[in-house]
């Protein structure tokens, strides 16, 4: 351990984004120079604070916004002390002491204490139910309140943070009112026109906005009940979020006698008034400015790491910032200064119908500021020219139309070919705004480190690793660099070309946003086509049906023809009809009815299926209702052989007749089929029950297979006899028939709730892992019962025979008759 003693000791106070980014940069430059200790006041590891809004809105989980987990600290030999707020710095002794009494010595000290939310000093500000929007505790408190049945939320502050909080709370089902002191929301980032458009959009989403509203008091006795404005208005509230601003957290530095004004004063090298102490992030004041956005933190972190690594020439010159609002479906971009002034000129573009507004402020032929609403594609381009103070006089005529329109040396081709536009960007163009990564850094990393996937780029450069809005650009850079060698990651593939959201996100957002119709989903998630396509509409219809049983009205026109007409279309446009035979059992009466139907309608082919049913082929569409009627009259119902749902439950004869049978597998199969028929699932589902391990019903290649043994029932899942044969995984062994039913229902419900449309159980289980399925269905008794209860609830609405409805009650009769006959 002598080696360790030769290292300098670096202590970081603040386990947030700025501090840890500095450490990351430092490790890249000189990994062995310091013995590093990190103090964090929160109990969490290092997470991406700017992504708290998507967590609140249910678009991301906490795990997804963790930047470095504990193993990262371990791997890099960093001592992490979470939940230990530092309360004292002794500059003489060069030690820091935490609230818990722990004292650690340093050679260099780095302060990254961030900022504190500003609390307006009104009566009632300490009432339970008043929170800020600053960390995971706040998010958890808000989510708890929304889940507890809190109805009304008031957000004080219509800035970036307040609006993101308001959106998140609204998505969680609360009635939200935003009260804002100024006449325009986000007035520091937006001009009046853009602020107006934003306010209208929020109001369309059911969020009330009151501007010019000054808070007088927060009302309530034991808990907040409302907010009183100075004009006398009173707004009811079960939750009040203070989001009026932040101020640098400087208490520790001030107590240690460092120079502090609005923030901890640092020079261009991020060094404070004590040469042994550096500071970085929102707690600092540099050239008179403090920052509350993320991009400047990265620039400071780089300079600060240079300093710590012994590169004193590196200097920070301040930042120009840009902002985007992280509210799904609202595109707002703002950069620089748009307040105008004597020497400024405005270029404004409005398209009311599309809800697009753009304003560029020019000062001496250079861009001083930009506000984009509704179409923010060119934000990065304007921002780059703004930062580089490029003379835009030659582009002036077409500047407002964006990068795709003339200019930039690639003619008018830019809009039509996004790759050409990306190729034309300079190496210093910023691609990832969240993490401050420029094009050159990404292309160099791809070339130097042999990166081949989006995840690789995220890992090595951090680009696209935060909000993800630049993912498309990063993928284009991968494509440009690797050519045909680049295959976009399957996991992040959009559902179809009508949207940029992958299946899993759509499912989550439907629930989080309480979206209850296909148009609502398309509106909220910004579908690119007016009414989708043949891929997304059936998927959305299923997701809505699964999310809102009994509430969502099935969209008939979004079903594939088989499900629309409850029969299978065949290659010549005729249909095949399969009546249900419970557990594979039939009777003379049923067989006679089938034979009669075959004669009466001249059905050309009768076949026994692989799932122990009888399939009648070659039925004309207009005959379908009459065929069904005759079968119904013999007591037979639809076999759902056409459905993305339960098809058949295959059985062997079991103990009733078989000399090896250990249990009544046929009876078990009938019970399972009675329970599961009519269900809608992401893809077809097949079950089987075998009466002994000889497995005559082939239960181990089914979606859910049951094999009877002497002591009970073995349960198997995720088998497939289709194109890619897959043997089942063993799920569990149970003793009673009731358990078989409960495990089966729970497994199917988990599949219904979480798989992607058109995934059978096999690829789904392979993706999420058998362990996960076991955890949910086998190990968690309460969770299994809840899944089973939800399954049974949804079955209440789906177990009606579609043939009966059409044969005798005239449902959808237009479907089976021609519109007209002519000639």
């Amino acid at each position, binding site marked *: 351990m002598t080696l360790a003693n030769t290292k300098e000791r670096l202590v970081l106070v603040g386990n947030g984004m700025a501090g840890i980014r500095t450490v990351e940069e430092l490790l890249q430059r000189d990994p062995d120079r310091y013995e590093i200790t990190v103090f964090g006041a929160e109990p969490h590891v290092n997470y991406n604070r700017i992504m708290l809004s998507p967590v609140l809105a249910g678009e991301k989980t906490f795990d997804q916004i963790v930047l470095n987990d504990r193993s990262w600290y371990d791997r890099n030999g960093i001592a992490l002390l979470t939940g230990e707020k530092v309360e004292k710095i002794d500059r003489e002794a060069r030690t820091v002491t935490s609230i818990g009494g722990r004292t650690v010595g340093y050679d260099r000290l780095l302060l990254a204490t961030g900022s504190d939310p500003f609390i307006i000093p009104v009566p009632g500000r300490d009432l339970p139910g008043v929170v800020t929007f600053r960390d995971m505790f706040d998010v958890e408190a808000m989510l708890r309140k929304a889940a507890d049945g809190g109805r009304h939320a008031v957000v004080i502050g219509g800035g970036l943070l307040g609006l993101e909080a308001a959106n998140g709370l609204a998505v969680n089902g609360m009635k939200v009112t935003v009260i804002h002191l100024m006449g325009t929301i986000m007035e520091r980032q937006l001009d009046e026109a853009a602020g107006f458009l934003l306010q209208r959009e929020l109001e369309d989403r059911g969020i009330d906005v009151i501007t010019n509203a000054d808070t007088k008091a927060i009302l309530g006795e034991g808990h907040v009940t409302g907010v009183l404005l100075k004009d006398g208005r009173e707004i009811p509230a079960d939750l009040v979020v203070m989001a009026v601003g932040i101020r640098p957290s400087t208490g520790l530095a001030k107590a240690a006698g460092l120079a502090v004004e609005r923030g901890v004063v640092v020079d261009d090298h991020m060094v404070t008034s004590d040469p042994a102490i550096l500071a970085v992030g929102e707690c600092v004041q540099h050239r008179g400015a403090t920052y509350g956005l993320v991009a400047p933190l990265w620039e400071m972190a780089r300079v600060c790491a240079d300093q710590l690594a012994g590169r004193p020439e590196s200097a920070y010159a301040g930042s120009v910032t840009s902002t985007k609002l992280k509210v799904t479906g609202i595109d707002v971009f703002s950069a620089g200064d748009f307040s105008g002034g004597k020497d400024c000129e405005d270029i404004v573009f409005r398209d009311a119908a599309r809800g697009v507004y753009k304003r560029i402020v020019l000062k001496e032929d250079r861009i001083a500021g930009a506000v984009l609403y509704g179409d923010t594609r060119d934000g990065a381009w304007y921002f780059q020219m703004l930062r580089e103070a490029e003379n835009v006089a030659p582009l002036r005529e077409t500047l407002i139309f964006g990068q795709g329109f003339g200019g930039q040396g690639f003619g008018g081709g830019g809009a039509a070919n996004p790759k050409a536009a990306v190729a034309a960007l300079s190496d210093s163009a910023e691609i990832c705004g969240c993490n401050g990564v420029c094009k050159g850094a990404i292309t160099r990393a791809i070339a130097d480190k042999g990166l081949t996937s989006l995840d690789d780029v995220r890992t090595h450069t951090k680009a696209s690793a935060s909000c993800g809005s630049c993912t498309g650009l990063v993928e284009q850079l991968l494509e440009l660099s690797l050519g045909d060698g680049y295959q976009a990651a399957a996991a992040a593939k959009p559902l179809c070309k009508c949207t940029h959201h992958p299946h899993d996100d759509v499912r989550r957002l439907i629930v989080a946003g309480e979206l209850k119709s296909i148009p609502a989903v398309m509106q909220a998630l910004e579908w690119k*086509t*007016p*009414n*989708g*396509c*043949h891929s997304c*509409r*059936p998927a959305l219809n299923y997701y809505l049906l699964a999310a809102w049983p009994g509430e969502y009205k099935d969209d*008939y*026109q*979004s*079903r*594939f*023809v*088989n499900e*629309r*007409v409850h029969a299978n*279309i065949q*290659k*010549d*446009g005729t249909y095949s009809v399969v009546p249900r035979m419970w557990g594979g059992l039939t009777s003379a009466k049923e067989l006679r009815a089938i034979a009669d139907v075959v004669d009466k309608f001249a059905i050309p082919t009768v076949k026994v299926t692989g799932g122990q049913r009888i399939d009648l082929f070659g039925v004309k569409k207009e005959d379908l209702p009459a065929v069904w009627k005759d079968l119904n009259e013999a007591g037979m119902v639809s076999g759902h052989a056409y459905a993305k749902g339960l098809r058949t439950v295959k059985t062997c004869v079991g103990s009733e007749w078989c000399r090896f049978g250990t249990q009544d597998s046929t009876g078990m199969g009938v019970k399972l089929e009675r329970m599961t028929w009519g269900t809608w699932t992401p893809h077809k589902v097949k079950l089987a029950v075998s009466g002994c391990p000889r497995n005559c019903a082939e239960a181990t290649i089914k979606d859910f297979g049951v094999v009877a043994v002497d002591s009970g029932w073995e349960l198997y899942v995720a088998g497939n006899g289709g194109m890619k044969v897959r043997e089942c995984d063993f799920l569990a062994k149970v003793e009673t028939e009731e358990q078989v039913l409960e495990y089966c229902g729970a497994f199917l419900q988990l599949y219904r709730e979480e798989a992607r449309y058109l995934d059978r159980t096999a690829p789904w289980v392979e993706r999420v892992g058998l362990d996960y399925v076991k955890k949910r269905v086998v190990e968690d008794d309460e969770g299994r019962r809840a899944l089973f209860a939800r399954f049974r609830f949804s079955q209440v609405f789906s177990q009606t025979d579609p043939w009966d409805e059409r044969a005798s009650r005239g449902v959808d*009769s*237009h479907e089976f*008759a*021609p*519109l*007209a*006959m*002519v*000639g």
Partner: protein
Amino acid sequence: MKEDITWIEVGRVADIPPAGARVVKTPRGDIAVFRTADDDVFAVRDRCPHAGGPLSQGIVHGARVTCPLHNWVIDLASGEATGPDEGCAGTFPVQVENGLIRLGLRLPPGPALGVPGAAS
């Protein structure tokens, strides 16, 4: 033999579900009459140029239909296959007036025309 276009009333727009289709049967094969979500009406021969699939049974999106047999996507205005596929289903002229749909057909001379057979 010269055949003139005859305008024939085949039903009302309301008889076709939005984003759906219904069939008009003629001696020369079925015609699929489509109503888009925006209430535009198109008439296309009810045979996919690929394998003869009944286009009337497909999912309608925008002014296109996806054939139920092999997912060819046909543009309803032109009858042409879209994307990399090539082929044309053939279209018929349509008039819509006061919610009534008339198809422009070239019919062989003969007895008068039957009227809508649908009970609904």
